[in-house]
Structure formats: structure tokens, C-alpha cells
């Protein structure tokens, strides 16, 4: 019995299960194996009560109350937990924000003209941003405007006072809360530095004050670095439109060069897509015996090139090793974030090359071809050539490509959703808002985040998404969570007919959308904030983000970025279910604040849980509370069954023929009817 590996508990994705079995045959050590080897995980670390900030320790607090209750410096478990969390937020915010800074650099490069190959693809968005950022546009060239915008955005990172420009998009009520709490983000780098300073040994000793500062840093991520990243990418590479593609390892092509892009930033991958269409490189591939060049993505780079180019998605975070193990990948190019250092080792099972490209991220064992915007085209072509070379080394007998891949529709944004809902003339969120108000749709929930080895890959994502759409909740997704749904076919519009509750199904059928909307990568969580802003602005289901019947969930959170995202959601007024429970278990004070008290301050709060059904119930209860507070109509269906609401919710304009003198109106119909006597 060779099947000692319990693949079903490693991933719910059949493609992953097949490759895991192949991995065992290959003798490859995967993340799952390393996770098993790491058991049992450190209990102190899990609870967040391990402190290694200074060099007197490390200290750890005894959660059972028997051993040390404070660290050497006197820090309590509450402070240690808060400090660890704060440092995670700073790191997560730094990751997103540096991504933003990087693409702003590309915009600057593009605005200079030159030979980089980058240019402004979306001048409409550029002009909208120029207006917002106070950059004069009339009579100026696109490049001049783009240059000024890039400079203004660059300055935003080092900004010291006032409010971040994109943060001014937040509804007024929320901004007042931030001001009152003193957490309006003043700059991007400044808030990260501020938080790291506070979390240094012997600085901020009040756990709550520290958490509030962490919220400010998180806001600088969501309403700053991430939002800038999304905006600039839309300017440079085009605003996404609804687009078809496929997802899962089945997108790898047996007869084509398979080049995987993995990481987060789209600057290089956009160039790779272009290079893969160059005639000379295609000819090169044909000479090498390949029928074409297939670029597919992993993780958020996949989401970026999917949203704008419709490139197929090979998989999410935990597919990065599995894709290589199929033996079909000729080259994997990586940049930043969520790139496992194990990749070169895994790649060595086959012919696969791994190429690292970011000046931030060198991977021992990988070839490093550094990406610089001004020679992006050359770098991209060089990498494609390397992939073709690698293809010639592929051993078809060792290739095992799972058949699984699902159709999907992606590419939804705050800019195009109103168009899809109302067309060019009546664009807006009204049909969605009406559907929520009338009880067809319970609310909108963002399901985002990573994969984690603590649960079977995709299990929580799919369980949560399926339960929510069955309860008439419209789901919007980003990141690896979106890819989980994509692989399971939930991003097909047909999924509305198969899985959505009756009310949501009606809306999806009316509009032609899937019940689960893919809105991008993890920096694109800012798109979800923008949608919230637009929903508030259009009015009808809440005058502030915290009044909207919406929620967020990170069901398989893994990275520090997830902590930062979760915290900026909460600070923006969003109820956020976060699982598995992050390292807060060691502090009652921190949990009580983040799961309770904070709601009075920001309007949002966390729900930390290990249990996906508890998350579902918590989210549904939250949506229903918001619906009740807004006095929205009762749901037309509960548990998929029509609710007899008696008189349907319809407020009719009471029309009565004007009486008395007003009946004469201003038109004097009388005179006319008097004027037409019959001829006889």
C-alpha cells in the first residue's frame, strides 16, 4: 500500500491530490511534508506570547498561569501579543506598499517615453487620477500628466503630515472616525516606521495604543500603497474588463513551452506576455519542437495577468511546488512575496529552470536575471528564450499534467461593474443596491487571502464561498482565494444556476455575472474598498461603510500581508472573519479589543475562529443585523426557500388625479377639448 500520504487532507483540489501522489513517487519533499515534519508547532509561538524583540530573552509567557507572567523587561502577554501583531502589520504593509512604489517607478519610466516598452494604456483612468491628485491636465500630453502623477505618488510614500490622498476617497463618516481616533494615515513609509518604532523594545507599552497605531499603518496599506498599486497598474496595463480564462494545472500544455509567472508584480509578467507573442520567439519555440508558448500564472501574478490579459491560471499559493512537480513547466519566473525558497530544490526533480528577477528577492539555486523597468523588454525576451531552451530538455515521459481545469470569468473592477450593471447610460450600482434592499441579495462578502498548510488546501475557501452564495450572498474575491473558487468552477456564470440561492441567482441571471466575482490580486483588495465607497455614495444600503450589509473573510490566511489587510478592513468599518486564528490567543485584552471594542471605534471588528461554519454563521448574522438596522426588506428566500412576506415590498407612488383647481394644471386641457366640436 503505497498510498500512505493522505492527499485528501492535504488539498481538496483533485489536481493537487494527483500531483501529491506523483511527488511521493518522485521522492520530492513538498510544503506538506515540511509542515508534517514541523509538528508539533510551538505552542507559545502559536499563542503569540513568545517575545524575541530584545536580546535579553527570548521570553515566553506561561498561558496556564504557572510560569512567568511577564517578560524580563516586564512586558505582559497582552503587550507581547500586540507587539508581535503590530510588527506583522508593518511587514505586510511594507510588502504591499513597496509593490506600489515599484509600479509607480514603472509609471515614471513610461512617462519618460524611452525604450522601456511601457506606456500609458489607459488615459481615461490617468485623467481621473490626475483630477483627484490635483495635477493639471488640460492641454498637456499624457506623458507629462503621467510623469507628474508618478512624482506626486512617489512623494506620497514619504509624506509626513495630513492625510494620504487616496484615503480621502473614504466616506466622510469613516474619515471622521479615523480623525477622532487619531489613525488617519499621514504617509505610507512614515506609518510603517512609526509602528516599527513603537514596537521596539521599551517604547509603546499600551497594547491598545499599539493596536490603534497598527490600524493606522494598515490603513496606509489599504488606502495608500495597495490603492496606488492598483490605480497605477490600471493606468499602465489597462483597466481590466470581464474576461474568460481557465484555471488549474490542466492549463499546462503538453506540446507548448510552459512558462509560469509567480509572485506579485505585473510589470515583468505583462512584458513576458507580450514577448511570448513575438513572432521571432514563437518561431524559436517552433524550431524547438513546441507548438507555442504558454504563459500561466501562480498566486497573485496569475491574478494580474488573468485580469488584464486573460492568461490561464495554473494555481494558487500551494500550487507553486505542485506545478513544478508535473514536469511540464519549463521555466518559472518569480519576483516578490509568497515565493517559497524551496522552489529550486523542487525544480531539480525535473528539467525546470527557476529564474528570480527582483532586486528584493534572490533565491539561492535559481538563476537571477534582474528586472529593471528601462530594459524590461529585453529581460522578458531573454527569459522567454531561456524557457524555450529549457523546453528542449523536457522529458515527456516524466510529465504528468492533471486534466483538471475549469472555465472562469474574471476581471471585475469598481470601474467596470457599474457598466455591466447599467450600461453606458445607466451605469451604477443601483441594480445591486436594489437587489440587496429588496431582499434578493443578503449582502456582499469579500473572501480573500492565501492558502495555509493548517487546513487542506482550498477547503475553507470553498466551504465558505459555497455556503455564502447559497444564502444569497454575492461574493467578491481576490488573491489565492479567488483562484480556489476558479479551480472549483465557481467563477463560471453557470455557477449561479448550480450553487446560488434563488435571489442571488435571479440577479446573476439578470446581469449575466457569476455569483462569485474575481476582482484581482491581493493589492486589489483596494478595489473592494472602492466598491464600498461607491455603494455608500450611490446610497440606499448604508450611509457609511460600517452600515453596509457587507463583510470580509480570510479563510486560509497565511502571510503577514493578510494580517495587514484584515486590520485595514476592520479599521475601515468591515466585519472580518479571520481563520485560522492568528497569534492572538495568548491575550484576552487583544482579542477582546479586536473582536469587540474596536467596533465602537471603527465600525468594524474581527471574528477569529478555526471553524469555517462559525465564520459562516457569524457573517450571516452580521449581514442580517445590518439589514435590520437599515430596515431593509426581509429576505425573499431563507435557506433557499421562498419566504411568504405577505405584501411584497413595493412602495407605490400614490397617483391621484389632481383635484380642484390644481386639476386644471398649467396646460388648460379644457380650452382645447372645448375647441374641437364635431362638424355637424
Amino acid at each position, binding site marked *: 500500500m503505497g498510498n500512505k500520504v493522505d492527499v485528501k487532507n492535504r488539498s481538496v483540489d483533485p489536481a493537487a491530490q494527483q500531483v501529491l501522489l506523483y511527488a511521493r513517487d518522485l521522492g520530492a519533499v513538498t510544503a506538506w511534508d515540511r509542515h508534517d515534519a514541523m509538528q508539533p508547532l510551538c505552542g507559545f509561538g502559536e499563542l503569540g506570547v513568545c517575545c524575541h524583540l530584545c536580546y535579553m530573552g527570548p521570553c515566553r509567557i506561561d498561558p496556564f498561569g504557572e510560569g512567568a507572567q511577564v517578560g524580563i523587561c516586564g512586558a505582559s502577554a497582552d503587550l507581547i501579543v500586540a507587539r508581535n501583531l503590530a510588527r506583522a502589520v508593518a511587514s505586510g504593509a511594507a510588502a504591499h506598499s513597496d509593490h506600489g512604489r515599484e509600479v509607480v517607478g514603472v509609471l515614471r519610466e513610461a512617462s519618460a517615453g524611452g525604450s522601456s516598452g511601457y506606456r500609458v494604456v489607459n488615459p481615461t483612468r490617468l485623467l481621473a487620477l490626475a483630477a483627484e491628485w490635483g495635477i493639471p491636465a488640460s492641454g498637456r500630453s499624457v506623458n507629462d500628466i503621467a510623469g507628474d502623477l508618478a512624482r506626486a505618488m512617489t512623494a506620497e510614500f514619504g509624506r509626513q503630515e495630513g492625510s494620504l490622498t487616496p484615503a480621502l476617497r473614504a466616506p466622510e463618516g469613516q474619515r471622521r472616525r479615523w480623525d477622532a481616533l487619531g489613525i488617519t494615515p499621514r504617509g505610507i513609509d512614515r506609518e510603517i516606521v512609526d509602528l516599527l518604532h513603537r514596537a521596539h523594545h521599551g517604547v509603546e507599552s499600551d497594547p491598545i495604543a499599539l493596536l490603534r497605531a497598527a490600524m493606522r499603518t494598515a490603513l496606509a496599506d489599504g488606502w495608500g500603497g495597495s490603492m496606488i498599486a492598483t490605480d497605477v497598474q490600471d493606468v499602465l496595463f489597462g483597466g481590466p474588463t470581464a474576461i474568460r480564462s481557465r484555471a488549474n494545472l490542466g492549463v499546462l500544455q503538453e506540446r507548448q513551452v510552459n512558462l509560469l509567472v509567480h509572485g506579485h508584480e505585473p510589470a515583468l509578467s505583462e512584458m513576458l506576455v507580450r514577448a511570448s507573442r513575438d513572432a521571432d520567439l514563437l518561431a524559436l519555440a517552433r524550431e524547438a519542437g513546441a507548438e507555442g508558448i504558454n504563459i500561466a500564472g501562480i498566486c497573485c501574478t496569475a491574478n494580474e495577468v488573468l485580469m488584464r490579459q486573460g492568461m490561464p491560471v495554473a494555481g494558487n499559493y500551494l500550487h507553486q511546488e505542485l506545478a513544478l512537480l508535473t514536469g511540464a513547466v519549463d521555466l518559472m519566473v518569480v519576483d516578490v512575496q509568497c515565493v517559497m525558497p524551496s522552489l529550486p530544490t523542487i525544480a531539480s526533480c525535473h528539467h525546470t529552470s527557476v529564474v528570480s528577477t527582483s532586486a528584493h528577492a534572490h533565491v539561492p539555486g535559481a538563476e537571477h536575471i534582474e528586472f529593471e523597468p528601462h530594459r524590461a523588454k529585453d529581460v522578458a525576451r531573454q527569459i522567454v528564450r531561456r524557457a524555450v531552451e529549457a523546453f528542449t530538455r523536457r522529458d515527456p515521459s516524466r510529465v504528468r499534467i492533471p486534466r483538471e481545469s475549469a472555465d*472562469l470569468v474574471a476581471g471585475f473592477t469598481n470601474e467596470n461593474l457599474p457598466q455591466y*450593471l447599467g450600461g453606458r447610460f445607466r451605469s451604477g450600482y443601483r441594480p445591486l443596491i436594489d437587489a440587496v434592499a429588496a431582499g434578493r441579495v443578503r449582502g456582499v462578502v469579500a473572501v480573500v487571502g492565501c492558502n495555509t498548510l493548517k487546513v487542506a488546501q482550498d477547503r475553507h475557501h470553498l466551504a465558505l464561498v459555497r455556503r455564502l452564495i447559497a444564502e444569497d450572498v454575492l461574493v467578491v474575491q481576490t488573491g489565492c482565494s479567488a483562484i480556489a473558487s476558479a479551480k472549483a468552477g465557481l467563477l463560471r456564470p453557470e455557477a449561479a444556476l448550480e450553487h446560488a440561492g434563488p435571489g442571488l441567482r435571479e440577479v446573476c441571471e439578470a446581469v449575466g455575472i457569476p455569483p462569485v466575482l474575481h476582482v484581482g490580486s491581493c493589492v486589489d483588495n483596494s478595489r473592494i474598498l472602492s466598491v464600498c465607497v461607491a455603494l455608500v455614495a450611490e446610497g440606499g444600503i448604508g450611509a457609511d461603510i460600517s452600515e453596509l450589509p457587507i463583510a470580509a473573510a480570510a479563510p486560509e490566511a497565511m502571510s503577514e500581508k493578510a494580517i495587514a489587510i484584515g486590520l485595514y478592513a476592520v479599521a475601515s468599518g468591515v466585519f472580518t472573519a479571520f481563520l485560522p486564528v492568528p497569534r492572538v490567543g495568548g491575550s484576552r485584552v487583544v482579542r477582546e479589543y479586536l473582536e469587540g471594542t474596536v467596533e465602537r471605534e471603527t465600525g468594524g471588528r474581527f471574528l477569529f475562529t478555526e471553524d469555517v461554519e462559525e465564520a459562516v454563521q457569524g457573517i450571516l448574522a452580521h449581514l442580517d443585523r445590518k439589514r435590520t438596522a437599515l430596515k431593509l426588506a426581509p429576505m425573499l428566500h431563507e435557506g433557499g426557500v421562498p419566504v411568504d412576506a405577505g405584501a411584497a415590498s413595493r412602495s407605490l407612488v400614490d397617483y*391621484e388625479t389632481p383635484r380642484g383647481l390644481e386639476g386644471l394644471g398649467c396646460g388648460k386641457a379644457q380650452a382645447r377639448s372645448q375647441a374641437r366640436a*364635431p362638424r355637424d
Partner: protein
Amino acid sequence: MSKIIAAAAIRGAHACMDRAERMLADAVGRLGRDAQVGFEGTAYALPTILALTGRRVERLRDLEDAVAEAHGWIPSVPTDSTWLPYLGGTLDAGAATLVAHETVESLKPLGGIPLVSGFWLGPTPDSILREQGIKLVDGRMPGFAACVGALPDDETAEQIARDLQERNILVFMGSHTNGDTMAAQLNRRGVQMNWETFLVPYGPDTSSLVHAIGFACRAAMTFGGLKPGGLKEARDILLYNKRRVFAFALALGEVDDEKYATAAGAINFGFPVIADTDIPQILPSGICTYEHVVSNVPHKSMAARAVEVRGVKIRTVDIPIPVRHGPAFEGERVRKEDLAIEFGGKYTRAFEYLTSRPMDRIEDGLIRVVGPEIADAPEGGRLPLAIFIEVAGRKMQSEFESILERHVHSFLSEPMGVMHLGQRDSVWLRISRKARDAGFRISHLGTVLVHKLKNDFPAIVDKVQVTLFTDAADVDALYPTATAAYAYRDERMGALTDEAVDTFYSCALCQSYAPNHICIITPERLGLCGAYNWLDGKAAFEMNPHGGNQPVRKGEVVDPVLGQWKGVNDFVSTASNGAFERFSAYSMITDPMTSCGCFECIACVLPGTSGIMIVDREYPGQTPVGMTFSSLAELTGGGQQTPGFIGMGTLYVLSRQFLSGDGGLARLVWTTTKVKERLGDKLRARCSEIGHPDLYEKIADETVCTDLEPLIEHLAAVEHPALGLGEMI
């Protein structure tokens, strides 16, 4: 499901666009790009294209540009699987279809196909739009129904039409089902179809339905004051319709691709589709207020269901008479061959007289017919008639008698099969055989009057009794009392001068769509709509102290010649939020009154003549100032003070204070024959009063000239007194 509709609508849009492009290419080939194109009698070019694109199409080259733009709005048909979002694209395809339809309709006359033929009325001219459209805006008409196709049989067609008429809903008819049309069905039933009966057949092709849309677009531009332009302006025009015009489409019979495409266009306006067949439904709301498409609705409940889906509840007054009633039946004529009985006209004496009584002298609801009833008269016979109405009410004043009496016309016109014309002792009343056969009696005239007076004037009328005399002796006996009352009222009205009262009335009934405009009604200057005089304002205030008519104390005189008072100026300043500080009752040059959009006439200065012209809103042609009424209306309306241009009620011409600050009646050098005929002898009398007995003949009209040069020659030739007054500005 909706995807079926989306696919059909997008296919239909492509088909309609192909046809429009073919016709356009053909027309360009025959006539060249500079050939003119447009509908008769409108200043809005091709109104739907104007509203949606901001393009003012005048020549075929403009039309080419518009069609090219609209073609770009049509997406591809949704795929069978993994489809992309289609709602927005379907709406866009619908908008493009409307552009295609309007193109086709506008090209028809160029290809020798008339738009008006038989009972088909073709596109609505601005003059009718202003008259009828205003009812949509001021609330007398809740909306319109665009009926698409035909019913299974003629009887059902009439039932649907009557159901809609009874709810005051304007009925537009277009397109066909299996070669038959609803209009033809009504025609076979002998139903009268015209603007007065609220039944308007546009044309037998689906493309003709765009005239209903053109009507909606112009309603927004005319009454809503919305200017066409870019996308935002188009959106505002669509939202105006969604919020204000309770219109919907009834899809009758099979719905083909082109009908779906047209419906998608209408949904952009917030007009839902109610179908009698089993087509897919679109229930979620958003573009429309409620459902977008509702299907399988039985004919019996179609009108009721349609207004409910559109979001309106229409309350009709229930009057126990055996025929249908409502303003839509007001325009129906009773022809000689349909006649059961008639009163008055030139054949017998017939009059109506309303007087007030102390409360205890009236038995409320008492209706008596003194003399022969309908059954006693021969078929098609004639009887004399005195309609004697006695009312009582705690707040009733004798001044209001004439106001209530004036309503007898509309009340007695509303029952189907009853025709009422004239007033006072010039009444002409007919009852049709159909009404009689349905059980209508002379006594039912009383039933209608009692119900309507009490329902419409609850604040001043508590009790009503009606006596209908049909015997010559009784009629003659009451007649002197009635004529004495008429004479007394006229005398009192004549004595009502601006100097004699200390209070004027404001009128803001139309403020919902002309928010910057406020009328000041004085005894000698009635409202610019022509419907309201000072006494009406007084009575309206009495009936509803919080309504659109408020008393305005004159205060001290600021300028007796221009007609300015301190109290009035203060009021205008407050009511306009400080936009206007002064208001002249007697001048169109200095601080003239603002105008909404529903003026009966426009007066404007004619440079070079020292005079002014007055054009009424039904006059479609050119005027000496070089503009049609519609173009003038754009300059005059919208609540602005435009020196040299004012809106006015026709009867203001007869006032002693008619532009007395600018030189008065002697300034009038040109008007329409319609105005001259309407004012007739009274105008002649005023001319004499001001010392120019032959002025009436000197005032030119469109039969004399419609250009400035010949007018100046004419004025010199007849020695018009205006020439001696000097230029106005």
C-alpha cells in the same frame, strides 16, 4: 431566463442597425450627404438621437455620424456557456436600436414613405407635445403605455385601451403582431383615436415606437429643462423619465428579436415591459424601479398590473354610473350618427348655473330630473336643458361659484359617450346611443356632478344638489336668474383691478419641474399658462393654505408704470432664493417675470419694428423673429429673466395692464391667426379703448408674412401705431 432576452435583444439590435445603415447608405447614394433629414414640427431635430448622443441631426452626414457612434454600442451576442456580463451590453444595444429606429423613421419620407397615413399619426410635433406632455409632468396623466403589436381579437384591444384610458394613461401604439395592429383593431371597433382621446397610433412598424421614446426625451428636455450634450446629460434625461414619467411597454403577442431590442432601449428610460405571452421574465430591479420584464399577464388585469410594476397606484374616483369615465374620454366626440339625445348647441336652449346656498337649504346628493328622461325622448331627439347646481359649504364663498361652474365642462365630458361643449348658456351636450344602451340616463349627469364636486373640492363643497330641467317652460323660467348671475359675475371681474386689491397670489404649481420659476398672478395679469387667474389663486389658497398658491401682499408701490411693489419684490427675492430681486408686472423689458415651460404664448420684442409679436404654443411655423415657438421657448423658459422675452396667458392681451409699462397693446405688431380669432371682438374692443379702433386689422399674422422685412413694410403701409412709439430697447 434573462440571457435569452439579452441574446434576442442584441441580435435584434444588430438587425435593426443593419437595416438603418442600408437605408442610410441608399439615401446618401440618392440624395447626397447634405440632404436634409428631420421630423416635422420639432425644434429637437431627431429627438431620441439628440437626447442620447447630443448630436443635432439635420443632414444625412450628421445621421451617418450618429449611426456610426450607436453601432459601437452593440456588443456581441452572449455565448452559450461561460458568458460575459450582458445586462449593460443589452441596455446599450437597446439604446442603439432606438437610434436605428429613429434613423429608419426619419429616412422613410425621403424614400417616399409617409409617416402620417390613415389613422397613423406619425411623430408628435412640439406643439402637441407641449400641450399633452405637460399633463405627464403636472400629474394629470400618470404616464404612457407603449402598446407593441396586437391583441388576439378586436374586443380585447378595446378593453385594454379603455382600461388604460380610465387610468388617464396615454396610449401609444406601434408595431404589429402577425400583420395586425392594435390601432387597426381599435379602428374596426370604431374607437376614436387622437390626442384628445389619449389613443395615439404611431405606425405599423416596430421602428415607429421610437416616436414614443422621442416624446419621452422631449418631455425631459422641454419640461425638465434638461439640455442634451454628452453621456451625463443623456443619463439625466433617462433618469428624469425613470423618476417622473410613469411609462411602460405592453408587449402584445409574439415578441420577436426587434421588439426585444426596442424593449431594451425603453428599459434604459426605466420603462418596464409587461407581456401577455410566456416570455422570460427579469424580476430584479434597478434600471427600472421594479421588475424589468413581467410576462404571461392576463389581458383582464394587464393595465392594473402594468401600473403596479411601474410603481404607481392609481386611485380612480368611483362614480356609480353605467359607463366608464375619466379625462381620456373627455376628448371623445359623439357624432350625429351615434346620437341618442342632444341638448343645446344651436337647436335648443341649454345652460348650466351653479349657485351657493345656506347649508340647511340643501339636501346633499339629491338629483332630480324635472321633465322628460332619456327614454321619453325620440332616438336622436333634442331637449332643452338647465343644469341647476346648488352647493353649500362652510368655506364656500359666492366668489367661488364661477370657478366651480367652470369645472362642469370637464366633469360632464368625462363619462364615455357624453360630449359636453361650451359653458354658461352656450352649452352643447350629447349622449351617445352606446351610453344610453349601457343604461346612462340624464339623471346620471347629476350623479357625476355631485361626486366630482364633492371629491375635487372637499375643502369648500360640503353639500351638492342638482336639478336637471328638461322641460322648455322650466328651462325658460330659470334662465333669467342664470343670465343675471353671469352678468353680475362679469361686472365684478371687470371691477377687479390691480389697484383695487391689496393682495396678489403666487403660483408655483409647476415648481416641481421649473424650480426657479414663480408666477405672480394679479387681477389684471393671469398666470402664463392661461389656466389660472387671480380668483383661482384666491380660491386655491382657500382650499389648501399650504398649496402652490400663496397670498402676496403688494406693499408700497415701487414703480406704478412698471408694476413693481415692495411686497412683491420681497416675495420674489425670497422665493427665488435671491436669484431675482425685482419683478415687473407690466414690463417685458425691465425685470420681466420668469417663465417655466408651460406658457400659453410667448411675447417677444421684434427689433426694427418698435413692436412685439405674440406666438401661441400650437403654432408650428416660422415667426418674424426667425424662430419657431419651440426655439423661442428654449430662450424664454427655465425660470430665467430674459428681457425682451416673456411667457404669457393669451387673455393677458386684453388686460388694461398688458405690458403697460412698455407701451401696451399698441406695441402688438404680429400674432397668430389663432390668437386673433380667439380674442376676436374683445380684442377689437380693447383696440378701440386705447384709441386705435383699426388696430386689430393692422396687427399682422402668418397670413400676412412670417419674415421681418415684409412685416416692416406692412407696418409702414398700414401706419401701425407702434412705429410712433420708438424702439423698445
